[in-house]
Structure formats: C-alpha cells, structure tokens
C-alpha cells in the first residue's frame, strides 16, 4: 500500500516537472518575438457595391436615414488600401506562439455587423453584442466547427463564443435581416486584419520562416514567404487585382 502511494507521488512530481520544462522551453516571450507589418493594396478601382434596402425592418432603416448603406464585399480606402483582409500564418507555425488573450468583438449595430470581417484565434474568446432595437439571430454557416444559430434580444447579454477548429472563412448571417453578412475567420496563431488604409500587423511571431496568406472575401487568397527576425518588424505587402 505504501509503495503504491510513493509511485503515484513520484510520477506526478516528475510529470509536473516535465510539463513545466516543456512549457518554459517552448513559449516565446514577447520581447524575443518578431512582428510583421504591412499593407494590402487594391490594384484598380473597387467594383460597384450594391445599395442595401432595410425597409423591411423600420428600426433598421431609421438608423440609416441620412446615409444609405451599401454592401462591403470590397472596401477600398485611401491610397488604394484594401480593408477587411485577414493576414495569417498558413505554414511554418511551431505551435509555440503566444495565444491571443484579449477577446475579439463582433457587434450588431444599425442591422449591420461591425466589423464586417473579424479574425479570431482558435480558442480565443469572441464577444457578440446586439446594440440594436431589433432582435437578431447569429447564424454562422460553419462546416469545420459545430454549427449553431442563436437569437439575441435587443439589449440582451453578449454572447461569448470560441472556435475549436481553423476555418477560413465562416460566413455569418442573420435570418431576420437577410442583407446582414459578416465573416469570421478562424485561424491558428497570430493574425492581422487590414484597416481602411490597408495596413495590418501580426504580433508575437517567433523568429523563423513562414508562409503568410492574405484572405479577402471576394478576391480569395494570396500567399507569400517571409522570414521573421527577433525583435524587429518585417515589412510585407500584398496586392489584389480589382475584378
């Protein structure tokens, strides 16, 4: 009896030590991590974006009385920058990146999704808010993650969701307001989403050689190899040709 206890205690002590060793050995501290910064540009003019008529739901239409809403399939900003492009590491991750700890947010406002494209790390928390006077249902059309469809009352509590598997992209729709469309891009590891000027930033990338992929909802993907050095930013740029 006594011998069994000893074995159990010894084994668990060893295991704890081993896992601690593994952990400290592989994790990359923020200081030694590299960074990728860059821009995504659109070569040419963005295609015409159809207008959205929200008259079906007067509370939605009222939110846009002064400014008509258009679709956001291609959003080109100043200086040819292309917004809503997700840049992520498609090859070369060693599994020792620092996971993104801050939750990302997807807000339903004026019967539109903000942001229109949201990227999230596997396991990272995502907060979904309804800031409208209307009821929405959030219906991600996922194929690699468990599919779900939840309603959210006006002023209802935020939903907190996580994604188990990489999936690029998960189209999200609201069945009550068919014009509403967002894309959740579930990636593994660091990612960046371009802003209106087309710039993005990937933090916490350990030094090494990677394949970066830029995904845009209309134009698809582009890839590029990049070597990241410790402690300094590496510049990368992508260009999508307007169609």
């Amino acid at each position, binding site marked *: 009896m006594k011998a069994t206890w000893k074995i159990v205690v010894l084994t668990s002590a060893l295991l704890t030590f081993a896992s601690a060793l593994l952990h400290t050995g592989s994790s990359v501290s923020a200081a030694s991590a590299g960074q990728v910064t860059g821009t995504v540009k659109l070569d040419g003019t963005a295609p015409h974006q159809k207008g959205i*008529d929200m*008259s*079906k739901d007067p509370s939605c239409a009222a939110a846009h009385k002064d400014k008509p809403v258009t679709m956001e399939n291609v959003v080109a900003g100043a200086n040819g920058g292309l917004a809503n492009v997700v840049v992520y590491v498609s090859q070369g991750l060693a599994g020792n990146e620092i996971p993104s700890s801050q939750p990302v947010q997807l807000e339903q406002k004026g019967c539109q999704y903000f942001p229109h494209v949201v990227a999230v790390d596997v396991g990272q928390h995502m907060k979904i808010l309804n800031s409208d006077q209307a009821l929405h249902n959030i219906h991600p059309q996922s194929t690699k993650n468990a599919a779900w469809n939840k309603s959210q009352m006006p002023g209802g509590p935020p939903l907190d969701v996580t994604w188990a598997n990489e999936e690029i992209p998960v189209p999200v729709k609201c069945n009550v*307001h068919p014009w509403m469309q967002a894309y959740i891009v579930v990636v593994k590891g660091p990612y960046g989403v371009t802003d209106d000027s087309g710039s993005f930033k990937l933090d916490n990338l350990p030094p090494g050689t990677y394949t970066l992929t830029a995904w845009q909802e209309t134009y698809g993907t582009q890839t590029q190899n990049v070597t990241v050095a410790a402690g300094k930013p590496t510049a990368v740029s992508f260009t999508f040709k307007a169609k």
Partner: protein
Amino acid sequence: MPGKAFAVVVVIVTLVIAYCVIAHVWWMPVDISVHGPNIDHQIEETIFGAGTLFIAGQLVLAAFSFLYGDSKGARKMKSFPGGAKPLIIFAGVVVGIEILVLSFVGSKAWGSVYFTPPDPDSVRVDVQAGQFAFYFRYPGPDGKFGPLHPELINEGTQNFFGLDTDHDADSKDDIITAELAIPVNKPVLLTLHSKDVGHSFDVRELRVQQDFVPGIVIPIHFTATQTGRFEIVCTQLCGLGHYNMKAYLEVISQADFDNWMKQQAAMQ
C-alpha cells in the same frame, strides 16, 4: 334558478357578439382594390348566413334552459327520432348543404380573382419569399425577367434571386427591391415563388392572400385604387422568424413610381 340565469347569460353574450359584428366594431381595414368589393360582399354574406344560424342556435339553447333547466323531478329523456345514426346523417346533410351553398355563392368572388386573365399590360413583379423576408424583382427596361439559378443564390452578395448577370442578358437590368412599389389604378401581376418553405403573401387592404408553394410559380393579379403604404405579411407559419417576415407595399402615382424605379435602379 341556475337554468334561467344561464339562459340570460347566453342571450347577453349572443347580443354583444351580434352587436359587435353588425356594428362593425372590429372590422376589416378599408379596401383599396378593384376586386375587393366582391370579396367583402362574400364575407358579409357568409357572416350573415353563419350569424343567423349562430343567433338561432343560441336562442334555442337559451329557451330550452330557461323553460326546462330548473325543473325538478325525473323527466323522460327524448332522443332524436330513430336515435344517433339519423341525427348524424341529418347534421351532415345540413352542414353539407351550407358549405355547398357558400362555395357556390363564393365561386363568383373567387372566379373574379382567379379565373379572370391578367391585363396584358400589367406591371409585372416577381416575388420571392424566403425565411424570413420578401424580395421583389422588376424586369427593368427590357421588360424581361432573366432566368433563375437557385444554386447562385447568395445573400452575402445580395443575389437573393440567383441571377447570373454575367451570362444572362435578360438578368442584367433586372431590379431587385426589398419593397413592393406599384402605380395606383394600374393592373399588377405578381408571380409568387418560394426559395425554401411555404409562405404566404397577405395585404389585408388589398384583399389578397395567396400562399407560396415551394416548386410552383403562382400568379396573382390585382389593381390598387388608393395610394398609401401598407404592410405585406407572411400568414403561413414558416419558422422561428415568421413573426418578423414582412415587407411594405407602396401604392404611388405613376410619376412617383417612375422616380422610385430610377432610385432603385441606381441602388443595384
């Protein structure tokens, strides 16, 4: 005493209901269609027939409970001559005649909507129902609707109808809207089709209520006689968002309609 009290209550309830119906306390909204008077007339006739029977039945019930409800002592139970079988046959025949008469009289109103061919110069609008919204399609300047490719339906690009504008010349100028605008006093022909389950197109003021049946294109035509904004609602339970499935009908002058069409074309 309880028998007499019951009789009094029955009479009061009957009178209140009869008053509400006869005085149009909760009545249908004003009719704005050319065919509407036929339907309203039919509804009035049906209510008159059914109401007369209703009042008669309630009065007989009240009279019997008033006269015999409180009597003491055993009374011999009397049954319908011949027992239950003739009673059921008798009731079946009476109800059958009533329904046949209603359908015969009502066929005129029904025929005025469904057996009258649409005006060849009708404003044509293709209506698509889907969980949980209506979308409308106008043929554009060429007057032709492009073919539908359901596999191309993509709400993310607002291709609600599944049009292939790259390959189908007729689809290029089709105008898709979320609101149904029609010119006043002009015949309108709608073609209803559903992209998923059963739905219904109901505009109370137009006296039009027609189901969508998946897989079938159902034409319905009418002429609106008054301008205004009216609700189009789905009256066939179609899923969780059914309560929110609606759109608006905008009946406007021809000039306003032409302007509206230009605005919608610019939004495509």
